[in-house]
């Protein structure tokens, strides 16, 4: 007897989000990125569609990343004092589909630079590259509320992806994003219930679901990776099943998350059984990236060019029907 393969059918597609705006759309980007739209769990092409493939963005800072791992310095030390040059290198040499500019220099512990500095950095990157921008604040609510509205204005019309908003801090940033035509990242601390609530709070303010991307504050490895994977998967299942507040595309950050882990950067001399440092960090970043892609991630933010290559090859392979 022939065995009928079991196929899942879902009733609610993941929302489609467009990042970046071309000239004719009021922006200045040379390309735009579309994410979401899935009608299946990742890469199960027989169950439904994945109209847009997941994309890799690369992370750039507004200031010199003084604590950057040596393995990354090899690639970025020639450009990391200049966000424009850094962004250009990521796009031109490493094929970044987007640049994720983290305004770390505005953090009170990282120099506490003002909004004018942040605007300047955003302007430089916008002028240097034609790909769409993800703009991250420093993660300190008060400072983000002072800086991100200014940054949003600087990039008005460019349809960036700006973040993060949280359960306790959404109003100022969402209002700016609505006014200036940007998308917003909804952050929740490894908590699906809060992830859903942040999305509700954002839509309550009048921003469309097609402008929201979820960030589950994924870890680089270990429990942080396992938890984030299962939250992504569960939220994607709920989203496809009809829960619109969990049907947004997902962003995962590998760059800072992988490379803050000692497993990724500790020298071989300290942990001989962990193996070659020059390959270990890359392996961790690529492993996290591919894991999250399987959990439903639509945008990866990455750092190591070799890990980027692996992730892109994986995406290409998995998108083949």
């Amino acid at each position, binding site marked *: 007897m022939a065995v009928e393969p079991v196929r899942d059918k879902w*009733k*609610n597609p993941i929302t489609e989000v467009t990042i970046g705006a071309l000239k004719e759309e009021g922006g200045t980007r040379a390309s735009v990125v579309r994410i979401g739209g899935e009608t299946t769990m990742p890469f199960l092409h027989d169950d439904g569609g994945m109209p847009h493939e997941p994309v890799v963005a690369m992370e750039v800072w507004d200031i010199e990343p003084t604590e950057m791992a040596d393995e990354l310095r090899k690639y970025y030390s020639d450009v990391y004092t200049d966000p424009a040059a850094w962004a250009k290198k990521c796009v031109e040499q490493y094929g970044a589909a987007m640049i994720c500019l983290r305004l770390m220099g505005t953090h009170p512990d990282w120099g506490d630079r003002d909004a004018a500095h942040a605007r300047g950095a955003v302007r430089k990157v916008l002028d240097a590259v034609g790909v769409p921008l993800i703009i991250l604040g420093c993660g300190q609510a008060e400072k983000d509320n002072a800086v991100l509205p200014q940054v949003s204005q600087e990039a008005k019309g460019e349809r960036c992806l700006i973040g993060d908003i949280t359960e306790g801090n959404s109003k100022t940033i969402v209002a700016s994003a609505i006014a200036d035509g940007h998308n917003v990242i909804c952050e929740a601390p490894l908590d*699906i*219930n*809060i992830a*859903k*609530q942040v999305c*509700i*709070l954002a*839509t309550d303010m009048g921003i469309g679901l097609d402008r929201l991307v979820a960030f589950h504050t994924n870890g680089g490895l270990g429990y942080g990776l396992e938890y984030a994977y299962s939250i992504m998967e*569960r*939220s994607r299942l*709920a989203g496809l099943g*009809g*829960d*619109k*507040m*969990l*049907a947004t595309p997902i962003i995962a950050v590998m760059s800072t998350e992988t490379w803050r882990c000692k497993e990724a950067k500790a020298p071989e001399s300290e942990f001989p059984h962990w193996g070659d440092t020059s390959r270990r960090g890359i392996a961790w970043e690529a492993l996290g990236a591919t894991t999250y892609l399987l959990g439903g991630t639509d945008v990866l933010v990455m750092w190591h060019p070799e890990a980027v290559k692996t992730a892109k090859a994986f995406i290409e392979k998995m998108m083949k029907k």
Partner: protein
Amino acid sequence: MIAIGERINGMFTDIKNAIAEKDGEPVKRWALRQLEAGADYLDVNVGTASKTPADAVKWLVERVAEAAPNAAVAIDSPKHEVMKAGLQACRDSGIAKTMINSTTGQREKLEVNFGLAKEYGASVICLTMDQRGIPNDVDYRVEAAANIMAAAMEFELPTESILLDPIAMPVKHAQEKIGFIFEAIRQFTLICSPPPHIVVGLSNTGQGTTQKELVNRTFLVMAILNGLDAAILDVCDAELMHAAITAELILNKQVYSDDFIKAYMSRAR
């Protein structure tokens, strides 16, 4: 829960008058109000309000479609010609999602109604009773349910298009039989995998009591715990709907968030 709004029914005076006077406004108003309150389907029932029920059901469906072209509609009638007229009117006015409310389990009834379900792509509410009349125990209900599911397979209707109705009794008049209903619901969930939907006409349970809303609400929550996932009910009773949503939340059928009622209302239908 699949919420089937009961309000467009010729038993209610305003709808009865609307049918008699060909005044579409009350029908449209109730269509929109029930959808806003969370109805997944709008039940359309002429009742005894017209001497030409096939014409009246067509007129009602057309008014619903004018107000809400994307609504899903359940045609509520025991008469074949009314059912067919209602389903045809849905098709003609662009209503894509339809339901037959209802059939009983006699072979000849199933043949007619499953035939219609196939022809119109409709779901079917199946009362778990047959020629023997209203069931008095669990076994009869389960036996009727099993026969219905076997017939559904025979007619190649997907399981998810069948809604089994264990036939809820008024608490006031059949208190000792209510327990059977929960047991029957539990057993319906085991009939096949995935199980069919399970539905009740909720307003029957509180009928004639002085605390109708409270009885209906409590019954609904208890039934949901046992596996009920659909009801024909007063969707405009916010406390009732909120109790159902919360029951499903507690059973982990929805991901919790602080605004879970709001999130539920925005879900994809």
